[in-house]
């Protein structure tokens, strides 16, 4: 009778032995590796300078790192779920997403440490926002493999962060190609609207207002709903009344009573909608309000629904660019 009947248990035991004997990554920053060990380098992450393999072979990704590393064709062996990004994935990435082992849920608190250990990664990339990092037991994960935390602080930071995540996972080549494709597309749309968009003072109503509090989300430059449209030449005027750190530096939640004063100067107003074009309840609350119907931009018919505002990778943001192009199309005919 075999003592270890389950391959997973066997893997976990081997891993535990490896941890106990201290044979993880660990050479210096020069990249020289002792015989039999992977070459390493020092990587600057939110959790400090971390020694990681130069070419990791088994990567676990969570949060925002999931779509970034799927697109970059990183050697993933486990991921967190990332339901909000499913409509933005290509068919190929979606198929890979479905196949991969899920080692964490949607929130950082749903991290399954045993499942991560069973995946036997040689690198763990945590892509959660910095304030949420405290919900993860990094010390416990570091016993399994080197951990790099690379999370967004402000929504528009996905451009740099997704590159950093791909870099850590040794998957930069495809990333840079996709980024080039995005930049070309953005430039083309920018030229298309060059005569109209820069003249408009725009405002954006986001999907994260809270009806139960009677408020709405207004997004400024650099926020989820606006940052890709900015690449197409849009400009969202104004700024938050009080900076609250992170996403609250670029978006705020005024009472619905403040809708007329908040958006009175806007020449045009964009708003976030679901991937299928339906209006989320928190946005519908604003759109159904009599205060909305009286806004100058609304009376002038200058409202623009944006799909795919959750994009956090270049591949996904290309879908957002198409959606922005589609929404702004009436500007070219008026």
């Amino acid at each position, binding site marked *: 009778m075999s003592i270890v009947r389950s391959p997973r248990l066997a893997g976990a035991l081997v891993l535990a032995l490896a941890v106990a004997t201290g044979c993880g990554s660990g050479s210096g920053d020069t990249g020289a590796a002792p015989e039999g060990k992977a070459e390493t380098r020092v990587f600057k992450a939110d959790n400090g300078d971390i020694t990681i393999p130069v070419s990791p072979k088994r990567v676990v990704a969570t949060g925002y790192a999931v779509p970034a590393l799927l697109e970059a064709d990183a050697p993933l062996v486990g991921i967190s779920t990332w339901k909000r990004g499913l409509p933005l994935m290509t068919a190929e990435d979606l198929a890979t997403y479905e196949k991969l082992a899920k080692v964490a849920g949607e929130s950082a608190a749903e991290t399954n440490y045993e499942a991560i250990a069973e995946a036997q990664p040689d690198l763990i990339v945590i892509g959660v926002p910095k304030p949420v990092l405290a919900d993860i037991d990094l010390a416990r994960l570091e016993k399994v493999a080197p951990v790099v935390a690379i999370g967004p602080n402000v929504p528009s930071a996905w451009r740099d962060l997704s590159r950093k995540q791909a870099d850590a996972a040794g998957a930069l080549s495809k990333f840079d190609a996709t980024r080039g494709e995005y930049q070309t597309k953005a430039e083309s749309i920018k030229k298309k609207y060059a005569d109209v968009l820069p003249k408009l003072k725009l405002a954006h109503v986001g999907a994260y207002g*809270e009806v139960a*509090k*009677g*408020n709405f989300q207004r997004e400024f430059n650099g926020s989820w709903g606006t940052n890709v449209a900015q690449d197409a030449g849009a400009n969202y005027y104004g700024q938050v009344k009080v900076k609250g750190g992170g996403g609250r530096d670029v978006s705020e939640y005024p009472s619905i009573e403040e809708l007329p004063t908040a958006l009175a100067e806007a020449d045009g107003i964009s708003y976030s909608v679901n991937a299928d074009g339906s209006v989320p309840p928190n946005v519908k609350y604003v759109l159904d309000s009599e*205060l909305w119907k009286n806004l100058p931009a609304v009376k002038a018919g200058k409202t623009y629904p944006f799909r795919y505002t959750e994009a956090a990778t270049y591949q996904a943001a290309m879908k957002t660019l198409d959606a922005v192009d589609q929404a702004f199309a009436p500007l070219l005919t008026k």
Partner: protein
Amino acid sequence: MNTTRRGRGTRVVLLAAALVLLIGVAVISVGIGAHTVAPAEVVRALLAYDGSGDHTVVRDVRVPRAVLAVGAGAALAVAGTLVQVLSRNPLAEPGVLGVTAGAGFAITLGSALGLAAAPAAELGLAVAGAVAAAVLVYSVGRRSPLRLVLTGVALSAVLAGVSLGLRLLMPTVFDRYRFWAVGSLAGREQAPTTLPMVAIGLAVVGALLLSRQLNAVTLGDNVAHTLGANVARVRLSALVIITVLAGAATAVAGPILFVGLMVPHLARRAAGASVPWLTAFAAVLGPVLLLVADVASRVLLPTGEVPVAIVTAFLGGPVLIWAVRRYGTVPL
């Protein structure tokens, strides 16, 4: 006789004063909000509406909210009064009959089945859940007030447990429920509340009409029979009224638990042991309390609104303790 007349006169004066207070806090509620509207403009919005931003804020956001506070406050306070009288338990509130838990369970189940997408659907689910829970509680515990309360508490515990299980298993359900679970008057101005408000109005009138017979029931079943009251019918009618009041209030504003417990205690200072007077005072003081809490919810924090249920619990608890310590309790 002389004493009775003097007592009635005092109560009439106190009730009139409470009504004046209600009108005063309603005016303040319509005048105060995140957007500053000059008092003269508030009056113009009510009397000479011109469709401007200020007028729309007053007419389409603040007035519906104040009306909702009046309706929900009266409903919860009168329901609390009837529950305390019916169960002869000063710690009872509408939730002990399972009505709130029933509404919460229906919202949770509806969210899990994808039926709670629109405010109207949410409202319908809450009413259906409240009614179903009340019917179940009454059918099991109708024989005695104690049995009624125990059945309500037991059913509430079961429904709360099942709801919690569903929410833990389904994060999207949890997301939907957490917004509903904290009772609030904000963001409700677009919900179809006309029908629940009419139901509340009719149920309050029904409670006032029933209150004389409830007065007899408080003396015990035998005495009530002797006085000509049909105890079973009175109890059933009271339960129907409580269900309509608590179910409608919970549906339009979410669970606001403390009003139904606290207002009857405060009203008893003025009404004494008379159920008709107690019901009348509760119908006026409930809206006063909820309007004051709602105004406070808008101005307490500079960062934004606090749900009114948090304010009623935060301020109501100490106020009730102060009232009991200062004036003592009045027996049921």
